[in-house]
């Protein structure tokens, strides 16, 4: 339960960051939320509107929370035995990350971590802004990111060091969850849904009263659909996890609507230039996630003004021909749809800093890689 709450917090807080960059959007979206989180959100929102200073303070506070929750979940993930992490372990997580950063020379940070430099949203408490990185530089980079996202539909995230295969899987999972929410296929974020689902289950158990017609509409959510979607999504994420352990995955496509040949929207996560390494020599997934989502929200790639209707989301994964994935269905004839403008999230690692860790396989041609389609598509729902 506690873990659920923390997880639930993560994306939701990330959303808050987005709210700052995209103030208007929040207004419409908060209308969709039904749980108690609304109050908090609106409060934060009004804060933003009144004056500049408290808003900044508010975000700083929230960013700290993100910091904590991210690292909190990470420590939990890496060592399950710890259980609900105490404040100490959370802080420890943060310290480790920042410690990582300090091992690098400043140019690396300048190049790869504009996020941690300029904006107050992602600065952990222990790092003070580096004097060598002028904020103008970071701003210019942000502007460039926004321009590229708008004109080319592409966002590039360069991690300063190699990452783990596990990490890549988490990136894809989080991006999927984020896209589902941002493109209005889920009424609230995945974590919130899980949370409210659990809370409801607890209530149901206490009440003993069976299901009554009309109840679902009263609560504002179709619980069975919600449960269905969550189950599907969980299964998909699990299988992705498995697939990532079987094969390198250079590309993942998220296809919204239409058919696989002619989708309405295409999102690609390109990891061809990611350098992989063991967990001892690579970045923590939490740090990468922070950088990734910071860049995504700055670029505003996902929140199109174009409204979307409820549809299905299909996941296509490029993996090795002989990886032996049983759940995914091979689609040898599949070609990446070209007539739909796809939005690309390019993940890569800074090669120069990578001291000897091979990404050998990453460099080779991808000719023995074929597309696999997830046999279940995520059906969107809004109520």
């Amino acid at each position, binding site marked *: 339960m506690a873990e659920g709450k923390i997880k639930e917090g993560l994306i939701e807080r990330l959303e808050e960051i987005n709210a700052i960059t995209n103030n208007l959007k929040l207004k419409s979206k908060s209308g969709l939320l039904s749980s108690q989180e609304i109050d908090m959100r609106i409060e934060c929102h009004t804060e933003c509107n009144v004056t500049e200073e408290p808003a900044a303070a508010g975000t700083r506070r929230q960013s700290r929370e993100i910091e904590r929750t991210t690292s909190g979940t990470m420590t939990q993930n890496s060592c399950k035995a710890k259980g609900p992490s105490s404040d100490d372990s959370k802080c420890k997580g943060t310290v480790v990350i920042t410690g990582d950063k300090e091992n690098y020379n400043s140019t690396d940070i300048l190049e790869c971590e504009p996020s941690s430099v300029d904006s107050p949203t992602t600065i952990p408490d222990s790092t003070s802004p580096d004097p060598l990185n002028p904020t103008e530089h970071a701003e210019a980079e942000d502007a460039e990111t926004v321009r590229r996202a708008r004109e080319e539909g592409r966002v590039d995230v360069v991690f300063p060091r190699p990452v783990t295969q596990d990490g890549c899987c988490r990136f894809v999972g989080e991006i999927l969850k984020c896209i589902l929410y941002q493109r209005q296929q889920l009424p609230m974020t995945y974590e919130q849904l899980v949370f409210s689902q659990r809370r409801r289950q607890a209530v149901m158990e206490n009440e003993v009263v069976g299901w009554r017609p009309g109840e679902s509409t009263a609560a504002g959510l179709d619980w069975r659909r919600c449960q269905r979607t969550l189950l599907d999504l969980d299964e998909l994420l699990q299988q992705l996890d498995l697939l990532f352990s079987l094969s390198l995955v250079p590309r993942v496509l998220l296809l919204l609507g*239409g*058919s*696989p*040949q*002619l989708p309405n929207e295409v999102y690609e996560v390109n990891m061809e230039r990611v350098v992989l390494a063991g967990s001892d020599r690579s970045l923590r997934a939490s740090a990468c996630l922070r950088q990734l989502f910071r860049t995504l929200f700055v670029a505003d790639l996902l929140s199109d003004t174009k409204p979307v*209707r409820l549809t299905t989301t299909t996941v296509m994964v490029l993996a090795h*021909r*002989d990886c032996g994935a*049983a759940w995914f*269905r*091979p689609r*040898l*004839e599949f*070609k990446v749809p070209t*007539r739909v403008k796809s939005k690309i999230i390019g993940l890569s690692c800074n090669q120069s800093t990578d001291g000897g860790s091979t990404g050998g396989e990453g460099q080779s041609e991808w000719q023995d890689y*074929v597309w696999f389609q997830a*046999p279940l598509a995520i059906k969107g729902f809004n109520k």
Partner: protein
Amino acid sequence: MNAIVNPALNSIGNYKPSVTQNMEADRMEEGDLKQNSIDVNTVHVEVHIKSNSTAKRSEVKTHVLTLLNRHCMVLGVYRWTEFDEDFLTKHVQSVAIVDAERKPIDLKSCCLSVHLFTLNEDGPCTLTLEEDQELPAANHWLLPAAEFHGIWESLVYDNGVKTQLLDYVSTTIYFSDKNVNSNLISWNRVVLLHGPPGTGKTSLCKALAQKLSIRLSKRYSYGQFVEINSHSLFSKWFSESGKLVTKMFQKIQQLIDDKEALVFVLIDEVESLTAARNASQAGTEPSDAIRVVNSVLTQLDQIKRHSNVVILTTSNVTEKIDLAFVDRADIKQYIGLPSAEGIFNIYLSCLEELMKCQIICPRQQLLTMFELETMGFRKCNVSELSLVLRNISIKSIGLSGRALRKLPFLAHALFVKSPTVSLEAFLGAMELAVDKQMEESANLLNAV
């Protein structure tokens, strides 16, 4: 009936084992093969690859060819489902020699045309127009679809209707490939199937699309089958219906734009979209309906410029269809009620299936019509049951294909009281069921 092999069909991606082993070369050979096909028979081999197989297609093809080399004498249509080679067992569902005559074929002397395909197990996707979200304007399938598998074999028609249709579409594509000037020689890519209900027109359309997407898999990487819900194209707003039709065709246009795809558009019960315009002069049709007809006609003219589209239409009441539309159809194929021979074949396949599922037990061999004919319909203990079946077939003339296919079911439900039954008893039950069916239709007519 398949003796005359269409050169167009042969020329698309043929393979001749003795000529070359190079897989990629087969499309280059088109020119040669056209001459070859006059004296060499083409045998189509369909290789159904398991949907979870990731093997390289070229590798599968080599293995299949070695298999065919080992078994080079086959008797007409044949299907391998079990293989002694591990590779084939692992990756291939079945290898089938299809659409051949019932006579011994020496594969060595034939031109082999190997078609590899996997079935798409996804259900249909829906195509919605912007306005009406609830009702999908069309369903579309990715071909070859698991849903359509086996329909082609299950349809039995006389006079080679199936082959003709196959040849027609192949010629269409052949002409487009050769850049024949469509102003001089015009073809509209429209097929109209008409006839009484229950004769399998819609099924035939689906089967044809499936078959072609397999046959032409070298030319087009996949097929799309779009089934238009014609009633969804009528708007509640006056004057909007015509626009909906245009919108629908715009969506189809998007599918056609992908030159890798072969697009089949099925307009079922086409009379609802192209009702005769002169009927509206009587004032029974609103003028909006006329706009729909106009819109459909102009859109069809637009679409026919593209080489990778085929429009399949079906209708029960041809006289109600607008003449301008009928005129646009290249093939107006009448699909009639099956003849006694057709009925015999349908029953035969039904009984085979029941024996396979061990509902009819023990298994007994039934002779085909061809075999009966060569025996001169002489009565002996081998042919006895087959002759009974022939009599039932003659008795059931006048029933539609749909009625025939459900007859064994009715026979079992009404007249067989045990879970398993002998063939002889079952034939008796079928005869009773036919009588009952006839009686019912007579009663219906009397009531009217």
